[in-house]
């Protein structure tokens, strides 16, 4: 199902007419929340008892939140009218079915969302389009006997409509409407339920998309989104963030949470992130991190940036030359299942631990089960780089060897880590053509 109800820009005339018709049908069944606010609330007889000041919905994670009541301004109070007392919700007025009215001032109960105050004009995430939006209008529709919030308008036209004369305001202009099913709101009870839902679309987003969302949200929304992600997928997203945005994010998080996330990042990316922090902050994060992770990162931090040591990840699969292929394969499978990583080759070492050569995952796959892995590297010149190698050496070495990664060794030719070609690419083109607008001086 197409989630975006969009006006066709071109195409066949017939098709356009059909869509127009469809649009009109949609348009007529929708009630604009922005248009309804401030409208009279009347009794059956026609007597006005007050003006609508907000719509209350309760949301328990279902696709479309249902309306549970109205807030009506009566004299100086905001009275709550349960939906069961509402007779009819029209575009320009609301008719009550019952004359009984509880005139006590409304107090929000947990789980209740005020559509105009909490959702309209606030930031939302459109999970299908992977973008942060601001609601220009909200649309209600009558579904299965109740009123439900079905869509969010993010069009500029709708903003103009709301600015215009009052009678324009009630006419929905579904020019860019997003199905509520694809929307992730923030700061609302029940929203977190959707976030934590098993098959939620946010969970399926690519890390780079999540990173974009994290960069664009306001602080509270960002933390809410981050808090709902698994540490591993949050860390993946963090790896994709712009350095400045990441530094801000780590700064504003409680240090325990920041440390957990940095600890879950790929070591090379974690080191990059840590290098960008103030000295105090870096020490603080390392202090609250599990000792083993902190130790690993501190080791990496010691290598100067721009060298092989500064770029490598310490995640490395090492096999002794006499290990059998089948055994290595099994180990790789287990390790990968527990902690998926970008490792694309196995480093083979001799009995002293010295590096002999790389066996790519493909070579490993096609090799015979009972072969010692050492036979796969026999007669080949091992490709590796010293830990102090410059970026330029790495590039030359990658070009010469045509490999997807390079093993980094120390002075005794013991393998220390691995550099992936994509990290080298990142280092070469840091800004990736993206242009963050800075709206002010440094």
């Amino acid at each position, binding site marked *: 199902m197409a989630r975006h109800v969009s006006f066709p820009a071109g195409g066949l005339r017939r098709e356009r007419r059909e869509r127009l018709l469809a649009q009109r049908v949609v348009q007529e069944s929708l009630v604009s929340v922005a248009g309804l606010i401030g409208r009279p609330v009347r009794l059956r007889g026609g007597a006005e008892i007050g003006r609508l000041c907000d719509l209350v919905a309760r949301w328990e994670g279902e696709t479309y939140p249902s309306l549970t009541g109205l807030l009506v301004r009566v004299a100086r109070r905001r009275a709550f009218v349960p939906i069961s007392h509402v007779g009819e919700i029209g575009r320009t007025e609301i008719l009550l079915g019952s004359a009984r009215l509880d005139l006590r001032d409304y107090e929000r109960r947990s789980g209740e969302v005020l559509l105009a105050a909490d959702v309209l004009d*606030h930031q939302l995430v459109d999970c299908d389009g992977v973008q942060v939006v601001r609601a220009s209008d909200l649309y209600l529709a009558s579904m299965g006997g109740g009123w439900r919030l079905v869509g969010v308008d993010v069009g500029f036209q709708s903003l103009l409509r709301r600015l215009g004369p009052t009678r324009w305001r009630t006419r929905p202009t579904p020019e860019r409407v997003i199905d509520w099913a694809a929307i992730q709101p923030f700061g609302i009870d029940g929203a977190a339920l959707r976030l934590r839902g098993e098959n939620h679309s946010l969970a399926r987003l690519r890390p780079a998309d999540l990173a*974009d969302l994290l960069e*664009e949200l306001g602080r509270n929304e960002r933390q809410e989104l981050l808090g709902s992600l698994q540490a591993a997928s949050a860390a993946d997203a963090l790896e994709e963030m712009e350095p400045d945005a990441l530094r801000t994010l780590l700064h504003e998080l409680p240090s325990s949470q920041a440390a957990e996330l940095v600890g879950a990042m790929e070591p090379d990316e974690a080191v990059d992130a840590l290098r960008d922090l103030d000295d105090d902050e870096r020490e603080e994060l390392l202090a609250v991190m599990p000792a083993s992770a902190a130790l690993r990162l501190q080791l990496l931090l010691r290598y100067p940036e721009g060298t092989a040591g500064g770029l490598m990840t310490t995640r490395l699969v090492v096999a002794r030359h006499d290990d059998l292929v089948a055994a290595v394969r099994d180990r790789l499978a287990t390790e990968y299942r527990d902690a998926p990583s970008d490792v694309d080759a196995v480093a083979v070492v001799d009995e002293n631990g010295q590096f002999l050569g790389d066996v790519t995952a493909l070579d490993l796959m096609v090799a015979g089960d009972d072969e010692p892995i050492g036979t796969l590297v026999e007669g080949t010149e091992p490709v590796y780089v010293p830990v102090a190698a410059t970026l330029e050496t790495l590039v030359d070495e990658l070009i010469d060897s045509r490999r997807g990664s390079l093993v980094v060794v120390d002075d005794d030719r013991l393998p220390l880590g691995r550099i992936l070609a994509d990290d080298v690419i990142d280092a070469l083109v840091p800004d990736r053509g993206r242009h963050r607008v800075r709206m002010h*001086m440094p």
Partner: protein
Amino acid sequence: MISALRPMRRLLRRRRRRLVALLAVLGPGVIAANAGNDAGGIATYATAGSQFFYRTLFVMVLVTIALVVVQEMAARLGAYSGEGLVALIREQFSLRIATFAVVCLVVANLGLVVAEFAGIGAAFEIFGVSRYVAVPFAALGIWAAVVFGSYRYAERVFLILSIAFLAYPIAVLLGHPHWGTVASNTVWPHFIANRDFTILAVALVGTTITPYMQLYQAAAVVDRGIGPDDYPRERAETIGGALFANLISMCIIIATAAAIGGTGALQSADQAARALQPVVGSGAKVLFAVGLLGASALAAAVVPLSTAYGLAEAVGAERSVSRHFREARLFLGLFTAQVVVGAAIALLPGNLINLLIRTQILNGVITPVILVFIVVLAHRPSVLGDAVNSRRFHAVAVVCVTAVAALATLVVAQTVLSWIGVA
């Protein structure tokens, strides 16, 4: 082949970031408040000195208090809500009221852009280059630098150039002002009840408490991830920054008063430059022009960017801005339009210094509107929670805003009355 340059980029970037970090020690508060000392600021302070000697110093004391109060609120809103001012206004007020605020911001900022291009023109006129040549070229250069992405380097250069204005405090010491008069005019409450003085007072307010500065203050606090925990330090920095900025402003008034006080309203940048003569002698003109050029060019790019960003924030199009700057037509269009209109108005025949001061009066009239929004937001528990204005602070804030608003109303009323020939 890999060019030798590319592998260096990441390192360069890192080194640049260290430079930024060095500048960041200054903090949002210092930078925001000192943004007031731009082309319009220099012109207004200088004319205050030349026209009224030291008489405006007491007004500056009041303006300083107001600036401290306002910048503190803006920083607090940023730190506690984690959102920029425009986004807050959109969320907290009805769309119509929010639109009104945004329109005010756009007009005020457009005034600033005009002032910055006028400043560039005035700086080049000191060197004998006609503004009809200098301003279009500068506009084109700034536009291209921002759109094609090399602005960051230019920005550093402009920032360093604008440091020239730190010569003013030295000029004060070497210029032998009448210290007794300076002191009495600073502490003794006084106000001259004539139209020129009132208008100048509004211009002083407008140039010192620019809506742009509050916008910047809140945005920069959010940008750096400063939250409630870091706020006490940020607060001290903000207050310190505002005080420092106004100390410089007052130095400009004093130095100019000592050099050319009593010569009436400032007519040219040449004249204003004479205030720096005690420091660098005949080099005063060059130093003044360099500083004016740096400050103006810096803001001529930054203010339209910030306006365009604010608008994008208001209509909810932030994402198009941060992801594909060049593809974001709305954003690019807004930026371009401001640069074009700003430069075009600065090219209208007439005195540049007068134009500069008029833009500051416009800002002074709009400032109270934005201040009302800030005070209301800072008084809302739904925005700031426990960090809302205390009762005493709120009273002070209300008094400040009322005073600023009263001044602005007076100027508007006088202007309207003079149109219909009453005053």
